[in-house]
């Protein structure tokens, strides 16, 4: 006899979202008031974090069989622990620095070796058929999250511009605007940020352009208004705030590869057997967990993507 276990009810369905997202602020606020009352000072202003501006707009999205059922990383952690060097090299800073980043108007130019080059407006793309994609995200630094993205397959955008037979790679570029991106005022990396995928990787159904998180439009610090998500690769391949997508013949050089060619390769597939030259990649710390867990080959997406790399030496093509 088969006893079917009902699906777990997500927290979002029990508590209204704005309340559960703000529960920490509530507790901190209560603590701050008590503290201020005790000390009779402005302690409240020192300990209370800057209030999070949730400019998120609800997105209509359908579920996807590619989603994992693992416990999702809390919204607050996904939005306050960000590698976004255009804002800061400190992961705790983009949340605040990106607060006033304006993502309208925004267009994405799709060009290169295509029959129908086209410039897309972000608001048009938000009307595409969107899906919830709950993916594992493994950072090259050794930590990981489970993130409920909202987006659409990159392939559905590329098919609209009709790549021609010469197109072998896809090159992505982030916005370059040092006035809006304080981090771009220093040459810690070569700006603008560039990433690339091989054509078959780009067309793979797991590869998405994300426009949302937790059912709403992307927070700025997570790459708004549109970013790449390739769940079997290290997180830095997921280029943020994309303004240009170019179909090219030759393998593009990623920004991190330029910065340190022996440390960050073009493929950067999650691989516990190939260590970063300076640290091990065998394990990872899932944000919110105490003990490290073993890192999975292709971040656990081997069944879907291992065939893309059949016969390749992944130690050389790291």
């Amino acid at each position, binding site marked *: 006899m088969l006893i079917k276990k009902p699906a777990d009810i997500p927290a979002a369905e029990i508590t209204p979202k704005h309340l559960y997202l703000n529960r920490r602020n509530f507790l901190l606020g209560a603590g701050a008031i008590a503290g201020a009352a005790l000390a009779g000072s402005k302690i409240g202003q020192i300990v209370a974090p800057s209030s999070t501006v949730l400019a998120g707009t609800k997105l209509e999205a359908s579920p996807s069989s590619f989603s994992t059922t693992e416990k999702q990383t809390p919204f607050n*952690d996904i939005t306050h*622990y960000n590698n976004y060097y255009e804002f800061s*090299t400190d992961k705790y800073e983009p949340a605040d620095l990106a607060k006033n980043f304006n993502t309208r108007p925004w267009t994405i130019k799709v060009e290169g070796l295509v029959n129908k080059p086209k410039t897309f407006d972000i608001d048009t793309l938000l009307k595409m058929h969107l899906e919830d994609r709950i993916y594992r995200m493994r950072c090259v630094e050794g930590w990981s999250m489970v993130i409920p993205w909202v987006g659409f397959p990159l392939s559905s955008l590329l098919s609209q511009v009709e790549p021609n037979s010469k197109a072998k790679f896809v090159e992505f570029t982030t916005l370059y605007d040092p006035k809006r991106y304080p981090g771009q005022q220093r040459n810690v990396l070569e700006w603008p940020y560039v990433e690339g995928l091989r054509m078959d990787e780009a067309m793979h159904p797991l590869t998405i352009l994300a426009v949302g998180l937790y059912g709403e439009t992307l927070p700025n610090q997570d790459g708004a208004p549109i970013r790449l998500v390739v769940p079997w690769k290290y997180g830095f391949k997921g280029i943020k705030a994309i303004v240009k997508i170019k179909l090219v013949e030759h393998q593009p050089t990623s920004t991190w590869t330029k910065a340190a060619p022996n440390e960050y390769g073009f493929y950067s597939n999650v691989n516990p057997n190939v260590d970063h030259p300076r640290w091990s990649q065998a394990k990872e710390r899932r944000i919110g967990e105490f003990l490290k867990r073993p890192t999975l080959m292709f971040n656990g997406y081997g069944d879907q993507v291992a065939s893309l790399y059949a016969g390749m030496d992944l130690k050389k093509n790291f």
Partner: protein
Amino acid sequence: MKPKYLKPFVFLACLVPLGRLGWKALNAGLGANPIQVITWSTGTWTLVFLMVTLSITPVRKLTRQYWLIQFRRMFGLFAFFYVCLHFTTYIWLDQFFDWHSMMKDIAKRPFITVGFTAFVLLIPLALTSTQASIRRLGKRWQMIHRLIYLTAVLGVIHYIWLVKADIRKPVIYAMILSLLLAYRIVVWAWARFAAPSTAQAASIGRRSIPAD
């Protein structure tokens, strides 16, 4: 010159970084990756205390505040205290006693190799920091305690080698350390080549050294 309660006050002040960390830990203030914050904080404070320890000699001589020497051992021991916390964080919270993985780390990861070496080199210094050891070891005591220069250099290299791209902060430590070491070289060169009598210069421990 020196108020009576200065020493206990400085001692407590040296514990503030730990207290702050503890307070944050109890108030969910360590962010998404608390173990990394603890590792970074204890590591940073180790470096700070190493730099402060190495500043005592130049500062007391340049400003003629010779009584500052009383604080050198305390600062040095606080550097050791924070590096112990740093190392404990690594073996307990970060690696969770995975000895195999730690051995591999120490052997294979240059930044961990130098960091571990720096830590090990501080142990004999902490062990021989007592008044009795100073008396017993005599001139050898100073020789042993010059290891702190090596520890500080390795500590800064450890920091530089672990960052991904933004080396601003470790470079600040490298510059401060260079200054502190340059002072020693100048003093040594002065005593060796420029002073009227080298023997005299070497024997007068509290002789003030020209700043240039």
